[in-house]
């Protein structure tokens, strides 16, 4: 049995169903991300796990104990909020020790645990400060320590990095992941940032319109998206309409080019997904070849993004920037090579 089980979870606000038949099994120590655009229901799922929202239907069990009917303060769950939510009237140490104090833990034990937590987040000297004396990143670290101090069964992170600037966000997400691994705490992380989800998670749940569209490892989600939405939402994906010429070997025609995927596909029309980084300039033996005209060229530093007209269909191609090779020019007709196994046939 899984450590945390969410089964047939539903939530409606009035006539609007914001979460529809949501199911998820989370193993102990696993880091799960709920990824999706605004309004997809990811935060609502998290809030139902925390107890801040009551499910319209379904169950949530933690270590076999049904918690759906428990109040938030009875669930033994730690939560970190986007807005930090540190208690302004308490010092950092008092904030971190708050949960333990509420539980009636002796003062000496609280002090020891607070010291341990502050060391864990790398802020051992800031215990006497008030929240307003800390930077955003420090406040979020303290919020994490506060959530972890009472040793919760599950840690919930509600877009904890969204309010931080880009540099702090990257360093803090690495720290959060390291701390989570060190403590082995089961974690659910809500984000709309695919990079965060891909870099931090053991598994990702991609949500769309209240439904879990796909659950899988970051590698699976990125490389084998199950639906058109997942394919479009995670990473950049070219979607191209193709006509199937021979379904048994996956021979298709797209934009005036023909290519063989080397696997059976459904007959008729197909939607192919090509990641920009999977395409290369020039012809390569054993790979499918496409021909198109460059319409735009964007220099992005380490990457050059080409916009190519492929028989009337737009195609983005990413090239690594290198001084050894001059970039192509707009208007130039180029050959593109693609490993046929990298082409996704998208359903959904």
């Amino acid at each position, binding site marked *: 049995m899984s450590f945390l089980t969410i089964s047939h979870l539903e939530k409606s606000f009035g006539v609007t169903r914001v979460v529809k038949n949501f199911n998820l099994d989370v193993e102990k120590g696993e880091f799960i991300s709920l990824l999706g655009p605004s309004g997809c229901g990811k935060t609502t799922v998290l809030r139902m796990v925390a107890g*801040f929202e009551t499910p319209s239907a379904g169950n949530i069990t933690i270590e076999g104990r049904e918690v759906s009917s428990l109040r*938030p303060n009875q669930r033994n*769950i730690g939560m970190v909020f986007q*807005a930090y939510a540190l*208690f302004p*009237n308490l010092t950092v140490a008092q904030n971190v020790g708050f*949960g333990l104090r509420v539980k009636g833990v002796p003062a000496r034990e609280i002090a020891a645990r607070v010291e341990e937590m502050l060391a864990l987040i790398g802020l051992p000297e800031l215990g006497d400060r008030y929240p307003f004396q800390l930077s955003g990143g420090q406040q979020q670290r303290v*919020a994490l320590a*506060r959530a972890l101090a009472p040793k919760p069964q599950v840690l919930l992170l509600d877009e904890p990095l969204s309010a931080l600037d880009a540099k702090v966000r990257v360093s803090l997400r690495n720290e959060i992941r390291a701390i989570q691994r060190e403590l082995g705490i089961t974690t659910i992380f809500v984000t709309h940032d695919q990079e965060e989800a891909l870099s931090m998670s053991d598994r990702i749940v991609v949500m769309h319109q209240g439904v879990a569209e796909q659950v899988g490892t970051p590698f699976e989600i990125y490389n084998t998206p199950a639906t058109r939405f997942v394919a479009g939402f995670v990473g950049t994906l070219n979607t191209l309409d193709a006509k199937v010429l021979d379904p048994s070997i996956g021979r298709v025609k797209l934009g005036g080019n023909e290519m063989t995927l080397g696997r059976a596909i459904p007959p008729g029309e197909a939607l192919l997904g090509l990641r920009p980084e999977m395409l290369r300039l020039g012809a390569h033996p054993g790979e499918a070849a496409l021909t198109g005209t460059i319409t735009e060229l964007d220099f992005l530093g380490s990457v050059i993004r080409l916009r190519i007209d492929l028989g009337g269909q737009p195609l983005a191609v990413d090239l690594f920037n290198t001084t050894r090779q001059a970039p192509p020019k707009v208007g130039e007709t180029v050959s593109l090579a693609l490993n046929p196994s990298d082409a996704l046939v998208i359903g959904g």
Partner: protein
Amino acid sequence: MTRAASWAVLLLGLTYFILPLVGMVEFSLSMRRGEYSFDAYAAVLADPQFRETFSYSVVMALLTIVFGILLVVPTAFWVRLKLPRLRPLVEFVTLLPLVIPAIVTVFGYIRLYNTSSWLPLTGTIFGTNLLLMFGYAMLSLPYMYRAVDTGLRTIDVATLTEAAQSLGAGWVTIITRLILPNVLVAVLSGSFVTFAIVMGEFTMAALLNRPAFGPYLQLMGANKAYEPFALATIAFIITWACMGLIQLVTRFTKHDKAGR
């Protein structure tokens, strides 16, 4: 507007406010013919009725403040957290004491809680004091509620509450350890206004026949010349001291900028 004109307007305003106060203080010091003295103050402070009514009103004010905090803080917190759509209604209710004269309220009290009613509060001194305290709390409700509500507006009540709940805190802990300390300055502002209202209130105390400071002020004003001005000066000093305390508390609240 030029700088000189601004100063002129400021001076005019200050004169408008300060001149009557100077006149009042000057008159309160003029009891002895031909020289200034504190005779009026000495006479007032020596009057046992002053001490009795003053201490009665102070005790009533403190009890009213405690009751007001217990009533208003959880109410304003709950309305903000769970019933935001009811806020206009609650605000309207809290404003009613400003439009309903105290005399109407106190006659209502007497009619409802007289000795032949189902809850004969006026039948005992304790009951009457209790009734008077409820009356005072009602009179100060517009100020207390507004002060607390404004204080709550400066913090993210919903998120702080959820954070505390996720850490195992119940409602009492949340209100006493988190909400109240974070709106303390606002609560103190409301408390000092309540204190000032209770100290000067006449109608309810007089009609309920309780020995409060307000009726004593009226009695002195009707029968003496200099003492009422000494009393008014004392009342002003108390009010200013309260305002000074609000400033001090605001200045020394360490976490003032936090969580905003």
